């Protein structure tokens, strides 16, 4: 895991001091709310539906037990004993006081964490593959590249007042576990003729105008990575629309210019920037890489799992994935107990996950964009002990990638932008399938719920997507089918007229029945949908 050196630490400490000063000036009235707002946002502090909300960055979703403990301590000391893990691999606290905010940032800085650029019209926290460093299919660990870009993008003097927010994801495998092509910039580390480089996908995103990013460059040499990113950003900063915030994301620029013209402009800028010496030397990348060297894995035989406990066997089958090292797996801790709040964890649960990571996962945890936690390096031999501890704490739901493993934004229960509640819908759907026992037989089924068109719940990318809207003051839910944020990326299509809260739960049940009736051997829900199309689902829903 990356460790701050004195420079990194000093930068974060300086930021805390800067924010402390800004908060003081807001509290004494010398800054107006209009002036303070972009400053607090660039430190992750929102004014939300009920209170201030603080979003803490978890760079590329990686943290250790000490950091997880610090997050738990913040939940207890400054909030109400819990936190919410988000679809950007971050954590947010819902009940923060402005007068405490600088102290929280100082506590974070003590464990090499921060809330820098987790909001605002700047380059946000960079996300990555939650199985990075453990996945058998990666050409490299993507996180050193994400860290290189984290440092480049932090306090970037030219790109802190962009037309709109800017999200970057970095992956390094053909499989996409980070919704890479639904980012402003998606980077895939690839190998060509034995050399590593970066493929750039620019102009994807969800929100009110969902778009899949086109590839604008198949191979950027690693010693030009930062320069190329700088060129992409400069073209956007200069020419992205600022007349309408709903058309200000880079996807609109790329769409309106056309990918070819946008690429031409980037290449032109890139050629000029190459002369400017903005690229760190490869030695810096090598320095960063040393922090991501593989842990010393024990020479563990691939022990056969003791399957005598059926509940454990179910969990092990569902919630662990193969590791590149024999005798190890990556284990997924579900934050989706049926009836619970997707992504929420109590301080006690955070501490437990931290402790288990220390004992059983080389002291590492990952936050998934699907709002679960990964223990990336677990010996098969330790799995039963691990599961027993998780299960006792309500963290042992065997439902990874199932209909119960719902992504849901905070919705109208917490968010001032929302038009409808997301969490109660997620709770009802998960409970219905858990009670009926159909979850396992439906297999992989990615269901995603957003409470407004901004799509924080990724509904466009759900095999089944649900969008909450406001219909004359009443919550209403639109159903869509056929989305995916994986390597088979696609955007979901709306089925037809919306439903009320109970109606949309029934509607989800109905479409799963169509799937069960129509599926062929081995087909996932999405495969069946793609083969048979929307019509049979529509007929079942609307008769």
């Amino acid at each position: 895991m990356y460790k701050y050196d004195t420079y990194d630490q000093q930068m974060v400490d300086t930021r805390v001091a800067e924010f402390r000063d800004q908060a003081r000036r807001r509290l004494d009235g010398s800054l107006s709310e209009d002036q303070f707002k972009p400053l607090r946002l660039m430190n992750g502090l929102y004014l939300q539906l009920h209170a201030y909300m603080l979003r803490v960055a978890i760079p590329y979703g990686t943290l250790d037990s000490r950091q997880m403990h610090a997050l738990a301590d913040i939940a207890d000391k400054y909030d109400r004993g819990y936190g919410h893990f988000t679809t950007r691999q971050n954590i947010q606290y819902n009940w923060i006081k402005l007068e405490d905010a600088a102290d929280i940032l100082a506590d974070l800085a003590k464990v090499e964490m921060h809330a820098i650029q987790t909001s605002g019209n700047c380059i946000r926290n960079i996300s990555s593959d939650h199985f990075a460093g453990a996945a058998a299919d990666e050409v490299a660990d993507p996180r050193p590249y994400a860290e290189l870009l984290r440092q480049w993008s932090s306090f970037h003097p030219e790109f802190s007042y962009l037309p709109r927010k800017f999200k970057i994801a970095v992956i390094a495998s053909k499989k996409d576990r980070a919704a890479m092509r639904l980012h402003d910039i998606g980077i895939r580390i690839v190998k060509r003729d034995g050399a590593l480089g970066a493929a750039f996908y620019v102009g994807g995103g969800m929100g009110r105008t969902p778009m899949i990013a086109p590839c604008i460059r198949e191979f950027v040499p690693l010693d030009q990575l930062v320069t190329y990113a700088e060129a992409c950003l400069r073209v956007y900063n200069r020419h992205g629309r600022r007349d309408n915030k709903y058309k200000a994301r880079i996807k609109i620029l790329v769409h309106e210019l056309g990918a070819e013209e946008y690429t031409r402009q980037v290449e032109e800028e890139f050629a000029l920037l190459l002369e400017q010496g903005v690229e760190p030397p490869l030695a810096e990348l090598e320095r960063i890489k040393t922090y991501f060297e593989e842990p010393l894995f024990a020479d563990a035989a691939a022990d056969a799992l003791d399957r005598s406990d059926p509940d454990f066997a179910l969990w092990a089958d569902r919630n662990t994935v193969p590791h590149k090292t024999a005798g190890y797996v990556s284990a997924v801790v579900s934050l989706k107990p049926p009836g619970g709040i997707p992504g929420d964890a109590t301080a006690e649960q955070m501490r437990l996950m931290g402790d288990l990571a220390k004992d059983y996962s080389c002291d590492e945890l990952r936050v998934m964009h699907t709002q679960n936690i990964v223990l990336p390096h677990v010996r098969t031999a330790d799995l039963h002990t691990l599961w027993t501890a998780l299960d006792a704490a309500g963290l042992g739901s065997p439902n990874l990638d199932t209909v119960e493993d719902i992504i849901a934004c905070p919705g109208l229960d917490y968010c001032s932008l929302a038009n409808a509640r997301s969490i109660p819908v997620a709770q009802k759907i998960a409970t219905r399938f858990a009670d009926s026992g159909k979850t396992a037989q439906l297999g992989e089924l990615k269901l995603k719920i957003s409470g407004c068109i901004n799509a924080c719940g990724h509904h466009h990318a759900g095999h089944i997507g649900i969008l909450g809207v406001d219909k004359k003051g009443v919550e209403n839910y639109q159903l869509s089918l056929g989305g995916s944020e994986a390597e088979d990326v696609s955007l979901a299509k709306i089925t037809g007229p919306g439903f009320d809260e109970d109606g949309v739960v029934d509607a989800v049940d109905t479409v799963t029945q169509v799937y069960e009736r129509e599926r062929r051997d081995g087909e996932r829900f999405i495969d069946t949908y793609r083969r048979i199309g929307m019509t049979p689902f529509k007929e079942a829903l609307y008769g």
Partner: protein
Amino acid sequence: MKILTGNDLKTGAVTWWTGSDWSLHVEDAVDVTGSEEEIARREEAARRVNVPYAIAADLHEGSPRPAHIKDRVRALGPTVRPDLTLKPADPDIGNWVI
């Protein structure tokens, strides 16, 4: 009726204008129709409230109830965590929101 709301600058808590002060409880809110801008300007300048604005409300069993569901959730707290709302002991409070 129109009632005036904002957040406490220091704590961020949702507050309601009572005619003389700010309260955490929407039941304490008073009709501000016609004077909302003046009160908002004065109170914000004094930093007794952050970003105040007026919303529509109706009288419900003698107390103001915001007209829109978003303002009702805001007044109460998250419906999915009744323990964290302002009425943790009231099992029927969900009906007030929906």
